[in-house]
C-alpha cells in the first residue's frame, strides 16, 4: 500500500518544493539585501528597532484579532442554524456566492452605502438621528473586513458540525444536560477542528489586509500589509518588504503551533 500512496502524493510534494519552499527561500534570501543590492542584516535591525514598524505590527495583530473574533461570533451560529435548515447545502452555496463578486466592486458598493449621502445615512436622517460619519472609522473598517471574511469562516465550521454524530447530542440530553451544557460540553469541543480551520483561514490573511485599510479605513488603520505593499510597489525596496514577509511567516508558524493539534486522547488514527 505504501508505495502507491507516495505516487498519489507526488504532485503535492512537487508543489511544496516548487511553489512553497523555493519562493520562501527566495524571500528569505532577499530579506538580507538592502536597496542597493548589498548584503545586510539592516532590514531586520530596522524592523525590530523602529517604533513605526513595531506599532504597525501591534496594530495589525489587534485588528486581525478583532476581525477574527467578530467573524467567528457571527459565523458559528450561522453555521449551526444552517445545519438544521431543510435545504442546507443550497443555503451554504448561497453563502459563498457573494464572494464571487470582485472585492473592489463590493468595496465601492459599501462606499456608496456608507457615505454622507448614502443609504444608511438617508435612513438615519429619516428616523431623526441625522447623518453620521461612518466611513473612515474603525467600526466601518471592521464591519467590511468581517463581511469579506464571513464565508471563509462559515464553511469549515459548517463541515465540522455536519460531521457531528447526533447520537452524542442525544446521549447528552438523555443524561439530563440542558441545551447550554450540551453546547459547551459536546457540540463546541467536537467542532473545534472546524473553528481552528476557520480561524487559520481568517486571522492570518487579516494580518496583511491592505486594500480595505485604504478604501474603507481611509488609511486611518495601517497594517503590515500597507507597508509591504509600499515596499514592493512604491519604494521598490523588496528587501524590506521581504523582511516583513518573513516576520509574517514566522508569526504564522507560531499561530499554527498554538492552534495546531496537540496530543489528543483517543479517537485518533492508529499512530
Amino acid at each position, binding site marked *: 500500500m505504501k508505495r502507491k500512496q507516495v505516487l498519489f502524493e507526488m504532485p503535492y510534494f512537487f508543489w511544496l518544493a516548487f511553489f512553497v519552499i523555493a519562493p520562501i527561500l527566495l524571500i528569505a534570501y532577499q530579506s538580507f539585501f538592502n*536597496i*542597493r543590492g548589498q548584503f545586510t542584516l539592516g532590514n531586520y535591525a530596522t524592523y525590530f528597532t523602529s517604533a*513605526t514598524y513595531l*506599532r*504597525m505590527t501591534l*496594530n495589525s495583530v489587534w485588528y486581525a484579532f478583532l476581525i477574527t473574533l467578530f467573524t467567528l461570533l457571527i459565523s458559528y451560529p450561522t453555521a449551526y442554524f444552517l445545519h438544521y435548515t431543510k435545504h442546507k447545502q443550497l443555503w451554504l452555496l448561497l453563502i459563498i456566492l457573494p464572494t464571487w463578486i470582485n472585492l473592489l466592486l463590493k*468595496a*465601492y458598493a459599501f*462606499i*456608496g452605502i456608507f*457615505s*454622507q*449621502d*448614502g443609504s444608511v445615512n438617508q435612513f438615519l436622517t429619516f428616523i431623526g438621528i441625522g447623518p453620521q*460619519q461612518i*466611513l*473612515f472609522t474603525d467600526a466601518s473598517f471592521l464591519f467590511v473586513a468581517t463581511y469579506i471574511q464571513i464565508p471563509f469562516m462559515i464553511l469549515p465550521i459548517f463541515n465540522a458540525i455536519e460531521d457531528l454524530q447526533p447520537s452524542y447530542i442525544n446521549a447528552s440530553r438523555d443524561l439530563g444536560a440542558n441545551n447550554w451544557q450540551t453546547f459547551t460540553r459536546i457540540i463546541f469541543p467536537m467542532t473545534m477542528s472546524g473553528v481552528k480551520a476557520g480561524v487559520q483561514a481568517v486571522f492570518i490573511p487579516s494580518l496583511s489586509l491592505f486594500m480595505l485599510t*485604504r*478604501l474603507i479605513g*481611509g*488609511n*486611518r*488603520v*495601517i497594517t503590515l500589509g500597507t*507597508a509591504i505593499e*509600499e515596499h514592493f*510597489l*512604491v*519604494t*521598490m*525596496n523588496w528587501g524590506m518588504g521581504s523582511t516583513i514577509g518573513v516576520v509574517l511567516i514566522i508569526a504564522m508558524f507560531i499561530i499554527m503551533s498554538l492552534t495546531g493539534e496537540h496530543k489528543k486522547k483517543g479517537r485518533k488514527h492508529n499512530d
Partner: protein
Amino acid sequence: MKKLVAAITTILVFCGLLAFTSDRLAKSQVKSQSNTLTLYNWGDYIDPALLKKFQKETGYHVSVETFDSNEAMYTKIKQGGTSYDLAVPSDYMIQKMKAAHLLVPLDKSKLHGMNNISPQFRNLEFDRHNQYSVPYFWGTLGIIYNDKTVKASQVQHWKQLWNPRFKDSIMLVDSARDVMGFALIRDGDSVNTKNIKQLNAAKKRLDSLTPNVKAIVADEIKMYMIENEAPIAVDWSGEASEMLSQNSHLHYVVPSEGSNLWFDNLVIPKTAKHYKAIYAFLNFMLKPENAAQNAEYVGYATPNEQAKALLPASVRNDKQFYPDAETMKHLQIYNNLSPELIGTYNELYLEFKMYRN
C-alpha cells in the same frame, strides 16, 4: 465515485466550451498574430474607437494590457517574459527606466508630427531632446473643493489647508511624493529636495495638518468627492476633471505658488518587437485630430498644441486644466531620486500616516 467523475467531466466540458468561445472572440478581434501591437497602458486611458480607426487605416491590431501603477509596470518590463511594444510611464519613471536600460531610443526619422507637441512640453529634464518619449497627456496636482461649503478664496494656496476651520475635511491622495511635495512647496522648498532638514520640517508640517485630514485614499477619491463625502481634496488634475464632470459643485485650483507638473508618455520598452506597427501608432497618435479625440474621451490635458486647438473653446480656455503661463512657470516636475532618498520620503510619509493613529 461515479458522481465525482461526472462532476469532473462536466467541469472539463464547460472549460472546453469557455476556451473555444474565448478563442473565437479573440480571433474575431485580431486578423493574424503577426500584425498585432501590444500597448501596455493605464486602464481605460485610450479611446477604443481610435484603436478601431487605427486598425482600419493601417491593418495593425492593438492589443491593450493594463497596469495600475508606474512601479508595477516597471517590475513587469524589467523581469521580461512579456512582449509589450509600447508603454505609458510617467516622467520620473522614464528616468528610472532609462537608467535601468529598459528603453529603446526613438528613431526620429520614422517619427512624424513631433512638432505638433507644444515646445514647452518638449525637451524636458526627464528626457532631453525627447530621445525616448512622446508626450501623451499631462497634468498638475491641485486642490479640489466643493462650493457648497468652501469659498474659492479659502483654498487658493497650499498653506490655507492648515486653516483650523477645515477640521476633518480634507482628503489626500495616497502618494508619498505628492503629499510631501505640497508640504515642501508650502515652505518654499523644491519637490526634489535632498536636504534632510527640509524633509523633516515638511513632515512636521504634515503632522500639524493631521486634525484636518479626513482620509488618505487613492482612486476612490473621485467617488468620495462626487458623493460630497468631503469638502476638500488634494489630487491630480486628471482625476479632478472626472469629478468635475459628475458634480457641478466641485472646482479645481492649481495654487499659483507652485505645484507638481506631471507627464504620461509613450515609450518603447526593450521588450518591443513590432517596430513598424509602433511607429505607425506613434504617428497616428501624434495627428491632431486623433489626439484631440483621445483627449475628449479621456478628459486629460493634451500636450499636442494642434490638437488643443481642435478642442471646444470651453475646454481649451479652462484655466483649471490649462493653467495660465504665470502658474505654469512655478510648476515643478519630479526627478527620479536615489533609492535611499525615495526610501526617506516614504518612511517620513508612513510616519505621518501613522501619526494619526
